């Protein structure tokens, strides 16, 4: 039975701070060894998760959803109104996908996702979050001066584009649908998926360049 005592946790943090190995890599190594010895973890299962997050579970998933929506009006409607069902069509269910919400950028609105209180992120659809998403700089500034943050990412928004910042304070998971770039009318969904970036789905990129991935 867990005692939910904040003060006790604070003391344990102090204790750990003083006694754990000095390097993060050594600390994690010690923890893994301990959990294996206690049969609380199977190292092969850790390997499997690492592989999954390095390969399968990444921004390619989100990009596929977006590309399909751009090319299939019915799916677009589903993604914007009942994203969990759209996610299920691709078999991308997983951690917190049951509360996915997709936010549509338009010519006059730009969406930006942040979690000011911790680091909530649509991990199952975009993979592990970039480090900057979890920094104090991004978390503190995205809600207060989103336009300055966007400028650092190279996105200069004209004053008549309204910014909508989404602070992920609950288990709702927000993902941005960028605008489909002009000149891609003939592209296939696969071709389109290749140009949808992670940052565009967080909202720290707005325009998707076509240069690299022009269709044959």
């Amino acid at each position, binding site marked *: 039975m867990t005692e939910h005592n904040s003060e006790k946790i604070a003391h*344990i943090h102090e204790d*750990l701070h003083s006694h754990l190995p000095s390097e993060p890599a050594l600390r994690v*190594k010690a923890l893994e060894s301990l959990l294996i010895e206690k049969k*609380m973890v199977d190292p092969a299962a850790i390997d499997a998760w*690492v592989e999954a*997050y390095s390969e399968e579970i990444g921004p390619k998933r989100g990009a596929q959803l977006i590309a399909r929506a751009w090319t299939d009006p019915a799916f677009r409607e589903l993604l914007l109104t009942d994203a969990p069902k759209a996610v299920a069509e691709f078999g991308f269910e997983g951690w917190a996908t049951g509360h996915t919400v997709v936010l549509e950028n338009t010519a006059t609105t730009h969406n930006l996702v942040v979690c000011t209180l911790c680091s909530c992120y649509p991990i199952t659809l975009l993979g592990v979050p970039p480090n900057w998403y979890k920094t*104090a*700089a991004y978390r503190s500034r995205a809600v207060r001066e989103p336009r300055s943050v966007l400028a650092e990412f190279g996105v200069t928004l004209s004053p008549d584009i309204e910014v909508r910042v989404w602070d992920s304070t609950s288990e709702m998971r927000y993902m941005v649908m960028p605008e489909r770039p002009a000149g891609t009318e003939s592209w296939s969904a696969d071709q389109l998926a290749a140009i949808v970036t992670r940052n565009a789905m967080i909202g720290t990129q707005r325009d998707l360049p076509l240069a690299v991935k022009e269709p044959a």
Partner: protein
Amino acid sequence: MDGIHDLGGKEGFGKVDVNEPEEAFHAEWEARMLGIVRSMTRPDDWSLDWFRHCREMMDPSDYLTRPYYDQWMQTYSSMMVNSGVASVEEIATGRSKTAPDPAADPINAQDVAKSMNVVGTYDRPYEKAPAYAIGDRVRTARHGHKGHTRLPAYARDCIGTIHCYRGAHILPDTSSAKSEELAQPLYTVVFEAKELWGEDSPDGDRIYIDLWESYLEKP
């Protein structure tokens, strides 16, 4: 709690590192730590909110300086010590002082693929009707409390509008304080940037925040 984690709107943290390498992990130990968290067995009464609160209780300078997955390492360690699953000494040395639980049966590699597709849901049945309707104006609470809560300090005592209703979700304030799931209506509330940050903010810019019913009152 008015902790160091409540970063929204705080100033002085400098620029965002926009040139970070694309790779998912920047060191092997980061990947191992995420893998550990996903696959380790744990007491039934550890909620996601309890984890978040335990992270918030970390020394504030550690919170600002330690790498993210290193903070996970220390937070899970604190939870293990608190729940009697391991001692500080065991965690520091990596050596167990007790025999493993004979019933121990951690998830194996074959089961990971299945486990990966489990959809966690945080909405729960709720008998009553939500108190607010879309378009209603609401005022957020003026004061927080010592425990875990999800009303950011920057949005306290502010006027917003109900943007939509998300169903009744587990209230973090209780789920972090006892092993109990209390369902409460959750809304996305929209605030004008000017309301939160003052008149210098651009017209039309808005901030959307997910807030539970008990964080709100009629204005």
